[in-house]
Each structure stands twice: as structure tokens, then as C-alpha cells.
């Protein structure tokens, strides 16, 4: 996992609530056994007017010009501004993979679905929860200001606008540590290998039917 550095990125608004992971990456693209290449099919059914299947050349497909990410002003976007309960539904990590592969580094929403939220941290994509009033304000700003950018500083847990407005955000200390240092969680857990073995042995003695 790459280290998360402070950056200033272009913001795009996705103005609907309860965006589910089937919408983020439809099922026909889950048949891949790789982790990469999902970005071209991010929001496939909203982004393209024709039906997408795996292996299609996306440069030859018919774009839905009304879909926000197809608008020229959002080219090179790195921050997605979303509504409540973003990422609900299926546990597919393909959803964060496709957002990251498309170029997103941060998603801002008033709330996220639990599994999606968790999955994002595992790959270095930062989901940020801001109160709905602030999110409403940012939607107004991003829609009215061309090239609207935000600076995301994870170390200090701050989002800053070009007008120098500053919003604080909360993040779990352990997850922050992992993101800032690009740490492998499995490696960290294996530092406790002896403790896991002891726990397991005790459990095996007490509830042997679990180990049959």
C-alpha cells in the first residue's frame, strides 16, 4: 500500500444517496481474478449508454454525456463528493478498487456503509465523513465553481478549501497510522502471532468441537 500524502485535488459531485456497490462496479466485471483494471468500468451503467461487458474497449463505447464523471470539467478528478450511505450493499472490494483505479484518493460523504468504509482503508483510499450540512455546502460550491479543489491533510485531519475554509475530520488512530506509513496490516497482525497461537490453544482446550 502506498503512503498517503497531503494533496490538493479536483472534486466531483455524485448527487444521490444510497449509492450501492452494484452501481459502483456491476457484477459482470467481478469475474476478473485480478485486482487492477476496474477503473474503466466504474459506475458502468451510469457512465455509458451501451451495455458493458468484460473485455470491451471502453474508448469505443458510447458515453453518457450527462453523467458527472464524463463532463470535461471533472477530468483528472481525485476527490468524490457523495451523499449518505455511500457504498451500501455487496462486500465487493472491487468497488474501492475501481474508484482507486479511476483516480480517486478520497471520498467525502455524510455516511458510508460499514463494509465499504472498512475496505477503503485496506487499499489506501481515504473515506472521510463530514456532517451533512458541510456536505450540502460543498455540493453547492463544487457545482458553482469550475475547477473546485480541496486540500486533504490526513496527518492533521483537515480539509481546506481554496478560500481557506477549514474542516476537521475524524479518523481512527490505527487506520491513520497505517495509511500515513503505507503499512501492511497482515504484517502488523503477525507481530502478534504468539498471542494468536496461545489464544487458539486455549480455545481448542475449552471448545474442542470448533477445531474438528
Amino acid at each position, binding site marked *: 500500500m502506498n503512503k498517503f500524502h497531503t494533496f490538493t485535488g479536483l472534486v466531483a459531485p455524485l*448527487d*444521490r*444517496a*444510497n449509492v*450501492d456497490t*452494484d*452501481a459502483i462496479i*456491476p*457484477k*459482470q466485471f*467481478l*469475474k476478473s*481474478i*485480478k*485486482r487492477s483494471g476496474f477503473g474503466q468500468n466504474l459506475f458502468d*451503467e451510469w457512465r455509458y449508454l451501451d*451495455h458493458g461487458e*468484460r473485455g470491451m474497449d471502453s474508448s469505443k463505447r458510447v458515453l453518457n454525456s450527462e453523467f458527472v464523471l464524463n463532463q470535461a470539467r471533472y477530468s483528472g478528478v481525485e476527490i468524490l463528493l457523495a*451523499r*449518505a*450511505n455511500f457504498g*451500501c*450493499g*455487496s*462486500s*465487493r*472490494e*472491487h468497488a*474501492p478498487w475501481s474508484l482507486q483505479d479511476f483516480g480517486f484518493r478520497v471520498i467525502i460523504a455524510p*455516511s*458510508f*456503509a*460499514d*463494509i465499504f468504509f*472498512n*475496505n477503503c482503508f*485496506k*487499499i489506501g483510499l481515504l473515506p472521510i465523513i463530514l456532517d451533512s450540512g458541510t456536505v450540502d455546502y460543498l455540493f453547492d460550491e463544487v457545482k458553482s465553481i469550475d475547477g473546485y479543489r480541496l486540500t486533504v491533510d490526513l496527518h492533521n485531519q483537515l480539509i481546506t478549501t481554496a478560500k481557506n475554509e477549514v474542516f476537521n475530520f475524524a479518523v*481512527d*488512530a*490505527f*487506520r491513520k497510522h497505517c495509511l500515513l506509513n503505507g503499512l501492511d*496490516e*497482515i504484517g*502488523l*497482525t*503477525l507481530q*502478534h*502471532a504468539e*498471542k*494468536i497461537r496461545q*489464544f*487458539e490453544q486455549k*480455545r481448542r482446550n475449552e*471448545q*474442542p*468441537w*470448533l*477445531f*474438528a
Partner: protein
Amino acid sequence: MMQTLYDKLWSQHVVHAESDDPNSMTLIYIDRHLVHEVTSPQAFESLRLAGRKPWRLNSILAVADHNVPTTDRSHGIHDPVSRLQVDTLDQNCDELGITEFKMNDMRQGIVHVIGPEQGATLPGMTVVCGDSHTSTHGAFGCLAFGIGTSEVEHVLATQCLLMKKSKTMQISVEGELGRGITAKDIALAIIGEIGTAGGTGYAIEFTGSAIRALSMEGRMTLCNMAIEAGARAGMVAVDDTTINYIKGRPFAPQDELWDKAVAYWRTLHSDADAVFDRTVKLDAVQIKPQVTWGTSPEMVTTIDGSVPDPSHIADEVKRHDMEQALNYMGLRPNTPIQQIMLDKIFIGSCTNSRIEDLRAAAQIVNGKHIAANIKQALVVPGSGLVKKQAEQEGLDQVFLAAGFEWREPGCSMCLAMNDDRLTAGERCASTSNRNFEGRQGPGGRTHLVSPAMAAAAAIAGHFVDVREIQQQS
């Protein structure tokens, strides 16, 4: 201190906590790891690249369910991409020595059906799977939740997960359910009440006399849908119903271990005075057959209701979402639910493909035939063993005589990763769990209902009140 069931399950599995702060990340031990073909290949690949091995092989049970065809399997899988994913699972399991029920094994089926069916899901366990509907297994008084692929790899490598303790929510359903009302109707009524994000951050325990009266199949349906209410885990306390279901299953303990296990399992309930962070109460008597009208499970109403009218919604975001949903669903505001005409019927999925579900549907269609406007009606049993049981009871003949297709087990048209799907504009009464845009096929329109309601709709060609049908028969 009085504990909730969730508190008990959690504290039993803490390997290591970074601090005393209950909100800190905690290392939790995982007892059972269920694996399917869609969310595991990248985890196995990364494990291999890192030079690691699975921590405890006998904690893992694997099955291919999402991509498998539900038609004749004697020639394998026709779609090369689906085939590669299933072959990859087979290879990973063979190489590492993981127990797997392969496609033509009688025990193959939907992962959330076969775990309990085999006794691989036991009370007091932590159960994970790279699949959000892992919440299903909470019906057995265990802590079961869906994980992403990175976490699948984490569990393979360490037998643990790093996580934060959830808040607890009690959903109490007291009273007796009306005739024809099922666990599916309870689940949809709850989601209608608290919303698809209502359970976010919580582990839900379902309590009350209506829950106690449910069979294990019903409890699985209910816990399955906990994730559609936003909760990663749903659970029901252990009682005689739980223990009687498990007894004698292949992976269940036997003899003196059985007695020892049962004695422990009997402690798996919330203490009488345990405090939940939130409590929601429903009156069972008030629950009617539910039908979703939109593109989120919370967009639900009752069979005697109508499609809502966005012009009555004050909140701008909500109104916009409702308009979008109605547009996608091709529905006009204020249309009575019973006037919605259907094209396809799907009875199956990890929510409703167990023997009790098939019996309930067969009872409705027995001696009748699907309506002329129904282009296809599928029954997809949850496992090979469910299929066999149903055939022994003659249910397959009831469905076939009524014009249904009787298929091989798998996830099928719940998410349409195999060939079973809706085409654009087709409208389906489905016993599955998600009515998201495109879920059952691009442009497909899904209405979530119980098996009995789907069966009744197949006969009528449109939604009907199953309670009225049952009164006639």
C-alpha cells in the same frame, strides 16, 4: 455486568486490544471462514506472493456459487470467464488442501445455505466470508459478518481480523404473525422502518416472541437481510430450535462433545437486563405482506399499498432519489401495488432458497399454472441437498406442472453473474435481497417479496395478497 449476546460473542474472541478504549482496533479470532469464487482469487494470489500459508486449514470451507450455471452442468461452465473464476477456486483449494464442495458435488450450493446445512456454522463462532450476506449465519447465535478481499487474505494469513466493536441494536418483534406473513416480510418491514442505513455501525439482535416462533430457515432469512438495514451482523439467541436444527449435521459435534457444546450454547443469549445502544419495537400483528417498489430495499410498502408520490416529499434529496427510482422502475406514482404486472419470477437466493421457502411457494402454486404474461418463472434451490429434499417431497413436480423451471443450485438471478438474468425493462417478483439498479440484469426491475408472495404473483401475473389466496384454498 449484564451482557448482550453480541458483547458475549465479542469478548470470547478478543485476542489482543491496543488499549482499554472500547473504540480502539481489536484483534478478533475467526472460527469459521467460508470462501467463494468471486471475492477470493485476489486474496489467494496475494497470500502466495507474500509467501504466506493459510493459518488454519480446517477453519475454511469453500464452494463456488455465484458463477455456476443452474442448467445442465454435465458439460461444465460455458462462459470462459465464469469458468476461469470457478477453476481458480478449485485450484487454490486443491493446492492448499482446503475443503471445497465442487460444482457437481451433491453438497454444493449457496455458501450461506450450505454452512448451516452442514453444521459448519455453530453457535458461539465468529463466521466470516467475502460476502455481505454472511450476516445470515447470525441466526445460530454466532457473530457472522461479510468482509472484503483484503480481509479474506488477512483471515487466511492470521486467523484474525482487526476491527472495532459495533454498537448494539435490539429489534424486538412481539406478538403472533398473521397467516401468510413470513420472516421476509418482517425483514422488509424492519428496513422500511429504520432505513437501509438504520443499522450502520450496529450489530442487530432480533428478539421477541415472533422471532422465537420462527424456524431456523426464517431466522436465517431475517439475519440475511440485516445487511440491507446497514448492519454488518444480525443475530438471534440460541434456543431449542437452534439446537434441534444442528443436531446430527455432518460438521456438528457428537456424543460427549455435543453435550458439552450444548451446555455452552445455552448461555448464548442477552442477559435479562442487558442494555442495548438502541431498541426498535415492531408489533408482529401489524406486519402485512411487503413489496418493494423502488431501487433500495427501504423503498417498500405493503401489498394493499400504492407506489408513493414524490410530489408529497418535502426533502429535496429524498424526492430526487424517489423520482429517479420510479423512473428506473417504470412506475407511476399512486399505482396500486396489486396492479403492477410482472414478466419474470425468481424464487431462490441466500435469502429464500431453503426447503421451507420452497414448500411455502409450492403450496401456493399447487394445481395452478403461471399466468400467460409470465415469460419465465425460476425455482433455484439453495443447495444440492435442498434440491434433493424438495424432489423427495414432490415439490419439483408441483413447480414443473405449474410452468416453473426447476434448476440446479446457486446464486443465479439474485445477482445475475451466470446466465440467469433480466433483460432491460423486464419486471421481476424476486425472493432475493437487493432491488438495486441492474442487480438482476442491466435495466431489470426487481420487486422483493417473500416466496409465497412471489408464487402468488406468478399465478396471477401481478402482485396479489397471499392472505386472500390462502383463504380461498
